């Protein structure tokens, strides 16, 4: 018998047993959460020989000082209180994954195109240290990129600012941002937000043609916004891809009391939240459309705006009635845009909702509100209703939805329909469908998306506006102030990005005008202003007239030469940011306004005689008359005090514009700056600039008028204040001399003197 093997577990090592705490901690050293005595080091650290666990790797580097990432406004606005906590939906696409470290951002040196004055050096980019760039999120790579793989705002949609060198705005390389034939608009002519709408209508053929056509008419009593838009669009067309500044437009627009009252005249750089900015631009949209239609009546001296109404007019029936008294009113009026601010009724298939459902909901509205009734003199509620009767060829929509409502739109696939059909219901109201509705062929009209203004909001929650519009059949462009670039069609209709919101949308009927007629004003062009006085106030009596009007015998022809010079007054001085250890930086160039313009005959018996000498009424505060340069004295531009031949801006401008369109050749000194300030685009072949003709290539130096006259004629000019007639005449002399020097082959030697 074998004895059973005893079942022992054999341990190779002794069993670990918990150690009994032998050292008791004296009561006096017991720590407490509530009192800081005794201190924590009353408990002694056991003896140690290796590195403590509490030691952190000394080479670990932590970065401090980065700008804190604010909580997104969209989250803050959509917070709901749930069980006492502020809760919101989280949008990972937009805000990124949770608990991601904020990367340290330092003031960085950004690659920017060089200032023009620096561009003779070889490399194309320069590094500019810019404090303002601290926040900018431009990614590296193509600035024209309209798509982004990383869910960031694509570069072409980012907010761009003009950097100023010491030479001001002229030194900024706008050409870098636009390789198309469509001109962009500068970002700092004031009220920058309006640029988006200007571009939207500039590329709308019916509206653009309508506006340009107004240029055929003679000047009105006062400056008209409608006509000013004409000059602006004409300039943008003529600029042919070069950048334009809407400065005259802004000058006239800002002077309109109604615009000021509506808060449309804003200091640039004033921060708006996204919603506020959308409201602002929509208010501007309604205002400008209404103002155009009013101006049409003034310009054509008619009682209705039939031309405008035929393009954008929306006949709408508004009705007011009350069950409390006999009040009952019905009125039919023309609106020029529809505020899309009603949500469609709940749908069984919400994902199929499109913009059409929103428009339909907004075309028929009923609201109740309290009034103090004029009829019965009591306070009671009334029912007001609005009903759109018909849609115009150009359907302009203000998308007046909240951030939250627009956020829902993002998830509606195909919300922004490329085209739709309009038909009329049995009650006479328009019905909008993506397909032709069977059996209702009567009155069917097809519409296509023409363009829209979108709001771009970046991660730092700064918003700005861009325009996306069809520039020719099926070819789309993005206008982001002075950046212009083609954009793919699928991107146009994609409204699913977190950073993009529709603000103003235009659909156009396919059966309406679809081509631009840039020459339309040439038919019946009224040039009578060239041959008569048209003072802003008063008559020739008591005025210091220094010119002799043109006669019809002298009517300018293509190739007629005229000498011009313009003088300016300063509205706002330039502003610098200065630091004691860095170069000073121009942050705001000075703002000048045209003060006087003189044009001289260059041919015939009266060569050198002045035929235009216009002083321009100043409607805004003038900071500095800079009299020694402009020759303009305080009071000269005030219609109530001035002894000068004072005209409105549009009158003076029209004369220049007519000379340009009649094909005149402009002789003058340093005309580039003058034309920029006059806000006119003159083709190079119509310019003879003596500053360019006498240009010292080797020294890269342009010579001043005074210096040249002294060198060439040994005459002294500009001994006192500048005078534009004298200066224009000096330029004319120089030009004549130039032709002579070229003829005799003496130009080089004269220049070297």
């Amino acid at each position, binding site marked *: 018998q074998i004895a059973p093997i005893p079942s022992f577990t054999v341990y190779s090592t002794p*069993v*670990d*047993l*918990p*150690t009994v705490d032998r050292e008791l*901690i004296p009561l006096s*050293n*017991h*720590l*407490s*959460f509530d009192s*800081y*005595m005794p*201190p*924590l*080091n009353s*408990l*002694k*650290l*056991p*003896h*140690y020989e*290796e590195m*403590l*666990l*509490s*030691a*952190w*790797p000394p080479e*670990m580097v932590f*970065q*401090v*000082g*980065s*700008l*804190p990432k*604010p909580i997104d*406004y969209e989250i803050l606005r959509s917070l709901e209180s749930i069980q006492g906590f502020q809760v919101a939906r989280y949008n990972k696409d937009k805000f990124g994954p949770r608990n991601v470290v904020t990367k340290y*951002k*330092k*003031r960085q040196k950004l690659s920017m195109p060089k200032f023009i004055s620096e561009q003779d050096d070889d490399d194309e980019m320069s590094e500019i240290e810019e*404090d303002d760039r*601290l*926040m900018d999120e431009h990614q590296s790579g193509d600035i024209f990129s309209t798509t982004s793989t990383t869910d960031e705002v694509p570069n072409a949609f980012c907010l761009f600012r003009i950097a100023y060198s010491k030479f001001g705005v002229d030194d900024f390389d706008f050409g870098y941002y636009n390789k198309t034939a469509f001109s962009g608009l500068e970002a700092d002519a004031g009220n920058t937000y309006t640029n988006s709408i200007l571009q939207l209508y500039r590329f709308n053929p019916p509206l653009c043609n309508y506006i340009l056509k107004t240029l055929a008419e003679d000047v009105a009593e006062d400056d008209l916004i409608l006509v000013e838009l004409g000059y602006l669009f004409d300039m943008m067309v003529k600029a042919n891809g070069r950048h334009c500044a809407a400065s005259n437009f802004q000058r006239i627009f800002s002077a309109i009391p109604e615009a000021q009252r509506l808060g449309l005249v804003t*200091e640039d*750089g004033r*921060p708006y939240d996204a919603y506020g900015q959308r409201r602002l631009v929509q208010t501007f949209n309604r205002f400008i459309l209404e103002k155009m239609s009013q101006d049409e009546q003034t310009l054509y001296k008619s009682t209705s705006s039939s031309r405008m109404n035929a393009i954008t007019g929306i006949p709408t029936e508004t009705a007011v009635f009350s069950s409390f008294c006999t009040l009952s009113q019905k009125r039919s009026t023309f609106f020029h845009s529809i505020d899309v601010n009603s949500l469609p009724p709940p749908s069984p298939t919400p994902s199929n909702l499109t913009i059409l459902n929103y428009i339909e909901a907004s075309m028929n509205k009923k609201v109740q509100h309290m009034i103090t009734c004029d009829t019965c003199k009591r306070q009671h509620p009334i029912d007001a209703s609005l009903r759109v009767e018909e849609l115009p060829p150009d359907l302009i929509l203000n998308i007046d939805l909240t951030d939250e409502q627009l956020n829902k739109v993002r998830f509606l696939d195909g919300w922004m329909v490329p085209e739709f059909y309009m038909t009329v219901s049995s009650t006479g109201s328009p019905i909008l469908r993506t397909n032709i509705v069977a059996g209702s062929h009567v009155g069917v009209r097809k519409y296509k998306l023409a363009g829209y203004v979108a709001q771009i909001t970046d991660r*730092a929650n700064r918003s700005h506006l861009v325009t996306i519009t069809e520039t020719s059949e099926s070819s789309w462009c993005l206008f982001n102030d002075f950046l212009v670039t083609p954009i793919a069609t699928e991107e146009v209709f994609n409204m699913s990005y977190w950073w993009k919101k529709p603000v103003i949308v235009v659909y156009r009927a396919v059966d309406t005008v679809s081509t631009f007629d840039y020459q339309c004003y040439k038919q019946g062009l009224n040039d009578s202003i060239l041959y008569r006085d048209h003072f802003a106030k008063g008559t020739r009596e008591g005025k210091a007239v220094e010119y002799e009007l043109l006669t019809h015998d002298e009517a300018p022809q293509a190739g007629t030469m005229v000498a011009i010079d313009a003088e300016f007054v300063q509205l706002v001085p330039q*502003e*610098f*940011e*200065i*630091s*004691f*250890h*860095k*170069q*000073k930086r121009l*942050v*705001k160039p000075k703002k000048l306004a045209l003060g006087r313009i003189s044009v001289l005959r260059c041919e015939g018996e009266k060569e050198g005689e002045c035929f235009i000498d216009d002083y321009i009424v100043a409607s805004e505060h003038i900071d500095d008359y800079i009299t020694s340069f402009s020759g303009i004295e305080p009071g000269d531009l005030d219609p109530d005090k001035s002894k000068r031949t004072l005209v409105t801006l549009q009158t003076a401008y029209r004369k220049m514009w007519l000379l340009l369109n009649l094909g005149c050749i402009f002789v003058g000194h340093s005309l580039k700056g003058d034309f920029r300030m006059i806000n006119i685009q003159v083709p190079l072949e119509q310019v003879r600039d003596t500053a360019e003709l006498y240009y010292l290539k080797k020294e890269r130096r342009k010579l001043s008028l005074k210096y040249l006259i002294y060198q060439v004629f040994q005459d002294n000019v500009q001994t006192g204040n500048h005078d534009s007639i004298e200066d224009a005449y000096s330029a004319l002399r120089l030009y004549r001399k130039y032709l002579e020097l070229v003829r005799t082959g003496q130009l080089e030697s004269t220049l070297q003197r």
Partner: protein
Amino acid sequence: MNKRPNERTVNDLFLSGNLREYLQQKNEASLRAIPNSQLNLPLHVGPYHSLYPVDKHFDKTDKSFGYLATIFKCVSNLDGRLYCMRRLEGVPITSGKFLEPIKKWKLVDSANVVKVYDAFTSKAFGDLSLITIYDYYPLSLNLMETHFYRIGNKDPELITEAILWSYIVQLTNAAMEIHNKGLFVGEFDPTKIIVTNKGRVRLSSCAIGDIVEASKDHNQFQNGNQKVEGETDGAKVIDEQKKDLERLGGLVLNLSKSTTFIKDSSTIKPMEIIDRLTFSDEFKKILRYCLTPDSTWKHFQELLAPHILEVANGFENSADYMESSLLTEVENARLVRLLCKLDVISERPEFIKDGSWSETGERYPIKLFKDYVFHQVDEAGNSVVDLTHIVNCLNKLDSGVDENVLLVSPDEMTCLVMSYKRLKELVESSFRSLS
């Protein structure tokens, strides 16, 4: 904090009653921040961001050097430190030359002058503002606020002869350093002298006066008033330095005056006011000397010598006191680092997915150990919170002692015996795997 008996006898001029509370308040003031949007302030001004207005108890529409002024706390993007930003609205700075004074002022290094770092103009606020950047002192009040206004529920501090002596010494120290750098104080303005600690005063707003002056000079120059440059400038500085003494006297006189009721004090001559003060003869003598036309800083310092010694003694004591307080706190950082390490590796969402924290995972003992340390219960299963136990365990973990600890699983079915040494290795390797 308990003061030790010997420290109670210390001259309390520079020590606040409850140091810990005071330090905590300072800490809180430094941390205070409000989302930018609510304050309608720029996101950043040059490289400085996270602006937060510094409470001004004295005057909400303060004009400083003739311009509207506001003060902010801000963070530098360049070094992550807190700074104090002063903004003056609309100073006509048209050239970098006006900011030249900052170069000299940056060299001023005194315990009684708030250090200036930077000066520039900015459009960040919409207008063109002059921005100057200084060291930030949380909870600092100016002399007016300290001695004449009730801030919150804190009564104004009584002015005593001892305090005034100390101010005189400290401001003399400030002035001497400023003079050494070829500058002058210009004005001893009680709203521009801040109390940064109990009894500690510092001249603030430095350099602004000179910059504003430079901009004025320039504009006068443009208007035809020729400015004489060169040696006259040097002579002007020397003259102003001399005047500084009289101005210091003026400040002290104004502060002193408030301790005694003097009818129509504005019509009475300074020397007469001094006579009526209830301070020591020596104090009156030195104050009179300040206001004497031919007074010199050199002789003034000589008269002041014994008091400088006294004040120095006070500073020595306060440094000693701080050090002794520090002595008891010196181990805290170690525990913070240890706890952070533990919390950084524990409960990481990405770890929960992999198995390392599960019951068979390699990091499971850490979880059990944390239960052991932090989640003690009594026999009835009620939570027990014992900081002594916690810190004691942490200390052992920190040094990795050989002692074994018994770790029981939450279901109380299995247990583990592990040494602190082994636990330490586990924590360390988990931490290493992160970074």
